[in-house]
């Protein structure tokens, strides 16, 4: 059955995905000047890749009702690194400077991250609103015939 409760599950998956995006943005902003990572080298900004996933029933099989209308959950497929180059800053005294005296700083643009943060937080709010309105619809359905 694809009904009220599938819609709530779909909204919830969207909220989770946006929260993951928020985490990556926080990581990018926090590491905007990080020149050392566990993998070696400068920090590279990360982005989540979202993918659609069919709504599943409690038994774990794809919900036929959901497939018929194409309703899908969203999930984070993977986290990818941004391939763009970092900015080079001439700082000969920096311990991570290359032989020419340049330090490669992360390819994080704080303004870009702020914009992403706004869209993530608005998308989260939109998800909450859709969840709330699904709840309101179900509540008013109970009122029918009272």
């Amino acid at each position, binding site marked *: 059955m694809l009904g009220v409760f599938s819609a709530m599950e779909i909204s919830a998956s969207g909220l*989770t995905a946006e929260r993951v995006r928020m985490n990556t943005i926080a990581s990018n902003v926090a590491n905007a000047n990080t020149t050392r990572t566990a993998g070696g080298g400068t920090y590279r900004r990360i982005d989540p890749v979202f993918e659609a996933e069919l709504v599943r029933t409690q038994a774990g099989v794809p919900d036929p009702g959901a497939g018929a209308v194409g309703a899908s959950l969203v999930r984070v497929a993977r986290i990818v690194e941004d391939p763009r180059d970092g900015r080079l800053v001439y700082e000969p005294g920096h311990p991570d400077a290359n032989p020419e005296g340049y330090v490669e700083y992360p390819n994080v643009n704080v303004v870009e991250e702020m914009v992403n943060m706004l869209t993530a937080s608005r998308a989260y709010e939109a998800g909450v609103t859709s969840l709330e309105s699904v709840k309101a619809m*179900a509540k008013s359905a109970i009122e029918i015939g*009272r």
Partner: protein
Amino acid sequence: MLDLYAGVTHLGQALDYHLERHNVLASNVAHVDTPGYHPRDLARVEQSSAFGEALGVALARTDASHLGAAGGGAEVTGRIFTDDSGGGGADGNHVTLEREAGKLAANQLRYDVVSALVSSELRGLLFAATDGKGG
């Protein structure tokens, strides 16, 4: 003999089930930061009445040798199962806050629906008991 409260009894069991499930889901939310925690959920295992079937909260009879469901005042029992479909974090915790919140809200709505049915059932009885003057 026709039981006056037959309908209400079955609906009462549905209310019990949803209350119990609420407790299980609330416990998942409480463990949102517990490393290695796997969220649990409560599945309804016994089809006790046609009401349950209509509400979509009961499981179907899968074998002919299962006890008949109709008319029996059998206790509704839930089965606890682990629901890891939300995906796990690096600490082995599989709780997804939004998913649990959504489940809680859906469960509450189901409770509200059943509760509205109970009220209407009881109003019907009151109407009959007061010769059509009350309710």
